[in-house]
Each structure stands twice: as structure tokens, then as C-alpha cells.
């Protein structure tokens, strides 16, 4: 996990990129995500695999976390997009990495983040008629029993 080296490279091209103190992850505004993703796919060291995609609910915002891998350079990179809780929309990466298709459906299912231009944005783990987003911190369900 050597995301530090790539930060300078990305910073040169995308001056709005920031680095998160505690995790060394790179934060990018959501408007720039798609261009940065294309840049990462084609530019050295060519992140050819989207290894993992998830999200974290921080109450006032939701962080979407992308982990890219380059099999050639044996490198990986963690990228984050902060989404305001009132505007949970971000571009889909399914057109660049096919792996994003199911990963994004999962994040949509569990967090309610809408991925724009996704080929088939439907719930994946929960039933289609499920109400609410289970991994949000404020999720409630009548069947949930509070631990004593």
C-alpha cells in the first residue's frame, strides 16, 4: 500500500486532490472522479483493477472508498469521494472497470448512494422491495432488538 508516491503525481494533474491525514487516502471532489479514474487507468502505473469499492457513513457525509490495484507495478491506491448526505450522487465507474458494476450496486443497496450512468442500478443483496439502507447509522427496522 504505497499511496504516498502517487499523491504527487495526481496532485500535479489534479490540484484539487487532497490527502487524508489518518489514512493517507486521496480525496477527490466528485466532479473530478471520472477524469481521475480514466487517468489512473491509462497513466503509469496503470491501475488495471478496481479491487474494492465501499462506503462509510460519517453521519453528515458518506465517504465512498475506492481501492485500485496495479498488477504490473504491484501497487495499490486508496481514493475517497466525500458525498454530502443531502446529495448522494456520484458518477459510476462501471464503464471503465466492470468490477464496479456489482460493487456499486452493493453500495447503492446498503447506503443509498446513487451512481449516475450505471448500467443496472438495482438492489443486489436485499430484496427489491426492501425499505431503507441497512448500513446507514440511522437505519431502523421493527425487527431489530436492542442489546441490553
Amino acid at each position: 500500500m504505497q499511496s504516498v508516491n502517487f499523491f504527487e503525481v495526481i496532485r500535479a494533474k489534479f490540484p484539487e486532490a487532497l490527502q487524508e491525514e489518518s489514512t493517507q487516502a486521496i480525496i477527490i471532489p466528485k466532479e473530478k472522479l471520472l477524469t481521475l479514474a480514466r487517468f489512473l487507468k491509462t497513466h503509469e502505473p496503470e491501475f488495471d483493477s478496481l479491487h474494492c469499492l465501499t462506503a462509510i457513513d460519517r453521519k453528515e457525509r458518506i465517504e465512498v472508498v475506492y481501492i485500485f490495484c496495479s498488477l504490473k507495478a504491484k501497487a495499490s491506491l486508496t481514493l475517497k469521494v466525500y458525498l454530502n448526505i443531502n446529495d448522494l450522487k456520484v458518477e459510476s465507474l462501471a464503464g471503465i472497470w466492470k468490477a464496479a458494476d456489482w460493487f456499486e450496486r452493493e453500495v447503492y443497496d446498503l447506503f443509498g448512494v446513487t451512481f449516475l450512468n450505471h448500467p443496472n442500478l438495482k438492489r443486489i443483496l436485499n430484496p427489491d422491495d426492501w425499505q431503507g439502507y441497512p448500513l446507514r447509522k440511522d437505519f431502523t427496522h421493527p425487527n431489530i432488538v436492542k442489546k441490553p
Partner: protein
Amino acid sequence: METALKESKCITTEEFLINMGPQHPSTHGVLYLELKLDGEVALGCTVHLGYLHRGMEKIAESRTLTQFIPFTDRLDYIASMNNNLAFVLAAEKLLGLEVNARAKYIRVVIAELNRIASHLLGIGCFAQDLGAFATPLFYCFRDREKIVDIFNELCGNRLTYNYMRIGGVQFDFTKEIEIKIKEFIKYMSNKVNDYEWLLSGNVIFLARTKNVGVLLKEVAINYGVTGPNLRASGVKWDLRKDEPYSGYENFQFDIPTGINGDSWDRYKVKLEEIKESLKIIEQAIGALPEGDPTVKAGRQHKLPVGEAYMRSENPRGELGFYIAGDGSFNPYRLKIRPPSFSNLSVIAELVKGCKIADVVCILGSLDIVMGEIDR
């Protein structure tokens, strides 16, 4: 014959949908495939998941890390030890804990034994899916039983072991267990040849698997396919070599790869990996360091504010855990990145143009476990 029928225009054909699963013996759990067929040829498929969804990631948010270890047993229940290992490695990375050398070696021995057990089951079930009724499966179960016996003696469980601990392992190896493992290496080294003789040289097996479900290198990487399925497509990528953890850098072993990425290669890579795993176990058990691998520290760990991601090479691919801590005893967020999830996502691509019997073959060769896909 089919084209002749179509051309004669005597018979009108139309596309139709057929449901495969959720209760189907070849779906390795509860998977529901909606196949679009033209006669016997599949034109595509829609995958429906979630029948085993237990909300493990949500459960983790109200458990301590140690309390969550038994839950990881139930992800990929064929390879529980490897899941345990992946999880404790992630936890140790977040907490910044070091593990002593003996614990590392014991973990490697156990993880590789479980890898053999898992691949044996994968091969046995694959042959069963192809219609080799019972015989290969019984051979595989006979040998897997020996590993399960060792685990049973080690920790008292046969399927869900709950053996690894944050900072070490639950029990040390006894002299008897070491002898048993050494005997098993000798026994298994001979038995691997039986599988070569039983399956690899079988004409029907070859005809059913060669050039069926060809997964190209680029497609595999693009879909995030990992593990033996990726290596079968000719990519030499194994975390044990490329991102070594738990002392794997100390052992000599090869990474078997395939050429065409078809079902045959996926089977063959698994079989070769059994041989490599035996090599690793032999080296590790022969050079077991002295010390106490059990954990004396408490079971409660206060998680630091921060995030850690750790992945390790499971029998089915790369299992990763993303743990975010917020200063309390419970993880703020725990993401499980299961290998089978991405491995299964490629199926819609693979079944296009296949006969319906080959769909079963492809599914068997991908060797998925629904427990970790649905979580």
C-alpha cells in the same frame, strides 16, 4: 442439426427464460440464475443474490473484534481458517500488533492445510457437477477428512474453527499434531497423483472442460477476478508472493498458472496448488520456531481512530477486510471484500453462447461459495 432445423423454417424457435436455482445442486449454495435460452444455448444470464444475506457487516458494528472472529468462519465456510487469518491480519494491522515467529508459522501451516481441504472439495464438487457421480467426490472427502481430523484435534471443531486470535492463535501445536501433519504430507503427496490419474487423464473429463468458459486475461482483471481463477487465465499474481504476509516470504514455492483460462485450466491450477501448498507446509513444519504462540493479552482492543485495509490470499482469491475505528471497542465500519463476489460477477460474460450443461461446468469451475458472496 440445429442450424438445419432453423434454416428449414419448419419449426419456429423463440428465446425463453429458465430459472436455475435457488435450489439447484450445482449452484453451491443458494444462487438463482435467470438464464436466457435459445434452444439449448444460453444467450445470457441474470444473477440474483442475497439468499444467504445475514448482514454480517452490520453485526460487526456492535461486536468487538474478537467477538467477530467466529462470524468470519461463516463467510467462506469451506476455508474458515483462511478467513480467520485474513481478519486477524487486518485487525493487527489496524491495532499495530506484532505476532511472534511461531504463531506466524503455525498460521501458515494451518492456512495451507485448509487451502488443500478447500481445493479438494472444489475439485470433487466440480467433477460431481460434470456428472462423475460420487467417485471423485468420495476420494476428495476421504483426503479432506484427514485435514479436518487434524483441525478437530487442534481446536475441537470440524467446520467453523474460530482458531486464530488477534496477536496469535488459540492453541499451540502439540507433538502429536506435528507428527500427524508430517504423516499427512507423505500421504497426500502420493494421493495427488491419484487425482491426476482419475481426472486429468479422463477423456470425458477433458472433453467436458477443455475450451469451456474461456476467461480472457484482460476480462478477468477488469472484473476483479482473483485467486486460482485469475491464475488460470495466465496471470502470475499471488499475494503470498507479491504482497507477502505472515512470513510467506520465507518459503520456496511456485505459482501455477494456466494458459487458456478455460474450465480445465481452473481445475488444473487448483490441483497444482495442492502440491505447492504441501511444499509450504513441509518447509514451515520443518522449521517451526520456538516460543509461545498463544495470546496472553486481553481480548478487548480499543480501536484507534483510523482505517486499515488488509487482504490475503484465500483458496478462492483475495479476501480483504476494511476496518474503520473511532476510538471505541467496536469497529465503526467493517467491510468484507469477498473473492467469490467478483469471481461470480464474470459469469454473465462466460455463459454467452454456451450449452446449458456447460453453464453447470463453468459454475463448478469458478468454485464459488455463497456464504461469502451474500455475507
